[in-house]
């Protein structure tokens, strides 16, 4: 009987732990907690508002949908644009109007209807083998060129970073042309899409392929891990499409949860994240480019050089996400 009594007590403890979400802010984050904890601690110090971060790699939108009006989320942080749009599409977030936000974040990197704001940017680069190809002036379009047959590595096509890249190709070239390109790219792959962006650079170092598609910040992150330094040193970072459209940009971002019970404080947090100090820290911790115009990236990131970014406003990509996902299935990109 004692066991049963103990169990009952434990059960109540479990229940009680969810019910205390009154004055705290809850952040649902696709970004790992250790990346943002220091910034949120500063926020708490300045404002006295406590913040709970809950990290999940996948499925936050699905969870918020299911939680509906009972969702404890106040602010959502995403690590990419696709997931930001997912929140908007499923009507899980609401506009957050603030003069400070509009002045801190350039129009190109926020939604016209204020439902989301970008926080950092990164380029979808093409890494090339230092040894076998050297520095290249390459276009995304070239990746379908038969001369690279068996030479290209990438992660799953259905990963948000690649979905957005395909969406940008559709935006610029239309569906038919993009499908031909994607089929060509698929035919050029050295192996079935697998692993993360880092694993592709590793594969270049190993000689499995000569070109790897990957986000810019991975280069910086690999340089931080002694085991991965040789991988990073085996590749050149290339900014694609410099002579024409400019490189594809992806962003991490934030949005205000629809059912937040504490929208005023949530807005304060969002404004804080768009400010100089947080922008600098948020970009630096992940080796990205801040969206706020007058905030400089870290020295390392700056050393990769200036580049021309695709001028297509990022929210335009959203129209083509769905088509991109379908196309990736149609050409059986991952299979």
């Amino acid at each position: 009987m004692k066991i049963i009594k103990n169990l009952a007590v434990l059960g109540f403890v479990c229940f009680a732990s969810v019910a205390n979400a009154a004055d705290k802010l809850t952040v649902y984050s696709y970004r790992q907690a250790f990346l943002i904890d220091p910034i949120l601690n500063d926020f708490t110090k300045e404002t006295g508002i406590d913040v709970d971060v809950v990290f999940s790699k996948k499925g936050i939108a699905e969870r918020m949908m299911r939680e509906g009006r009972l969702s404890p989320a106040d602010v959502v942080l995403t690590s990419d644009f696709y997931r930001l749009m997912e929140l908007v599409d499923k009507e899980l977030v609401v506009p957050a109007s603030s003069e400070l936000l509009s002045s801190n974040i350039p129009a190109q990197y926020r939604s016209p209807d204020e439902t989301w704001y970008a926080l950092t940017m990164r380029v979808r680069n093409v890494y090339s083998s230092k040894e076998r190809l050297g520095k290249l002036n390459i276009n995304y379009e070239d990746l379908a060129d038969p001369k690279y047959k068996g030479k290209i590595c990438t992660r799953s096509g259905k990963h948000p970073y690649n979905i957005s890249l395909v969406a940008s190709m559709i935006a610029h070239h239309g569906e038919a042309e993009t499908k031909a390109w994607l089929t060509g790219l698929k035919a050029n792959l050295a192996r079935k899409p697998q692993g993360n962006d880092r694993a592709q650079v590793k594969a270049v170092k190993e000689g499995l392929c000569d070109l790897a598609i990957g986000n810019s910040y991975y280069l910086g992150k690999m340089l931080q891990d002694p085991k991965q330094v040789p991988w990073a040193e085996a590749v050149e970072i290339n900014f694609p499409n410099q002579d024409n459209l400019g490189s594809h940009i992806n962003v991490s971002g934030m949005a205000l949860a629809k059912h937040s019970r504490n929208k005023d404080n949530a807005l304060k947090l969002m404004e804080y994240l768009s400010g100089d100090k947080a922008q600098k820290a948020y970009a630096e911790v992940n080796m990205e480019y801040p969206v706020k115009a007058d905030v400089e990236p870290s020295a390392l990131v700056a050393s990769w050089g200036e580049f021309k970014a695709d001028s297509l406003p990022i929210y335009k990509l959203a129209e083509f996400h769905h088509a991109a996902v379908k196309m990736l299935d149609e050409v059986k990109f991952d299979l």
Partner: protein
Amino acid sequence: MILGLPKRWSLAGYFVALVITLPLVAILIQAMIPDESVFGHLLDTVLPTYISNTLLLMFWVCLGAILIATPAAWLVAKCHFPGRAIFQWALLLPLAMPAYVVAYVYTDLLDYAGPIQSALRSFFGWGSPQDYYFPEVRSLGGASMMLAFVLFPYIYLLARTAFMEQSSSLQHATRVMGCGPWQSFWRFSLPMARPALAVGVALVAMETAADFATVSYFAVPTLTTAVYDTWLGYGSLSAAAKLSAIMLLVVFTMIGFERFARRKQQLFQKQSGAEPCELYSLKGIKALLATGYCTLLLLVSFLLPFIILLNYAWQYFDESWHVEFLAFSFNSFYIAAIVSVISVTLGILLMFISRVSPRKADLLPSRLSSTGYALPGTVLAIGILVPLTYLDFAVNDLYEYLGQQGPGLIFTGSVFVLIFAFCIRFSAIAIGSVENSYKRISPSLDMAAITMGLKPSSLLWRVHLPLLRKGIFAGMLLVFIECMKELPAALLLRPVGFENLATYVFQFVSDEQLEHGALAAIVIVLVGLVPLIYLNRSLEQQG
């Protein structure tokens, strides 16, 4: 059998059975709901590949496991050779290894950059992957091999028992007829053990269908990963439920197959003689081959990956040993402990009712409750979230109707949902374990107790429980390790921000840096070893 078990016992049994079968019903209902053409799109594009991958994977894993396990089982059961006493239990050890950990370790070894291919390249002077052929580890074939290596002990265990129980007089007969060991194996032992092998194969097939982590790491899309991706990627619960329904069809076919095989098994094994049969004594080259085979098997399926894991953990110890690691371990432990207590309690209750009740219909709850194990973790997660979300909203609606602030997501937003899911999935194991012990309590004891005027509850407390002790303990241990290892359900159901050892290890596997999470993986393996060794010992005592 008792002259009247109060109706409330039966009601309790039916209530438990109802709760346990709830997810199954929820999935079937959810699958009927239209899903805005997501399923149609999948059907037109990738679904056929998912289905054929799933079936091929099941086929290859079963074939591989049976080819690996049968010779080992026969050698250990029927022959004397050096190391036999050790292999008898040691060949069960791979069961404690999560398949995705083994998969990771072998990818590291056999990948293009791994030590083996690098050595080959420098030896033969090859420069690039185009210069030679080496099988791709991350493939359907690779996944099949990894799963076969960790799942073969199921077949080994059942086949070994079947071989041991084979009547020695029949074996003598084969010898008299002039069969050597080899012929005796082909013409007598193997055909007689077929039903046991079939049960083992069905178990392996079910485990394969439920595997999420290995195939996801190897980028081999199957129905399990499809359920996960459709749900979280497309955000379509209905399409995911439809995929789940397809998967259930596959799994229940397997169960039907298993039941069919088991029916025959009883028939065969009742003939078995009690006296142990004489062992073939292997000498010279034959003994060497037998020992070599078993050693190789143990090395490949357990020792090598485990040693590599130890090495990772050693190198990254400082990084891995931190407060969070302890917190995650605690999460795993306390949830496993709670679930094993609840599952065994349910097992005792259900088996007590079906043993003691005079009503034939009271056999049903324990049977129904065993179906929970058939639901793969991803499928189960969907089946649980649907009804519990309704419940959450109902509770909050009620509070608000009464003019109070609702308590929030008390069911789906807390560890309750995890505990609930694990109980449903693993009660079958507890039920089976208690059932086995019950079989060994003579019904005359019950009668004696009743004659002496014991009420049903006292019969359970004072007579059955003390006698069931061993089975209860074994059941708790088994449920405990399954809870430690279970990944997909934990991934999908955990409250946001909650992490246990399995989800923590998998996060590193999917980030391709298991080195940092190796310590946690070792804890999972070690916790799994204890019950295996204990169980094997109690099996041997029975023999």
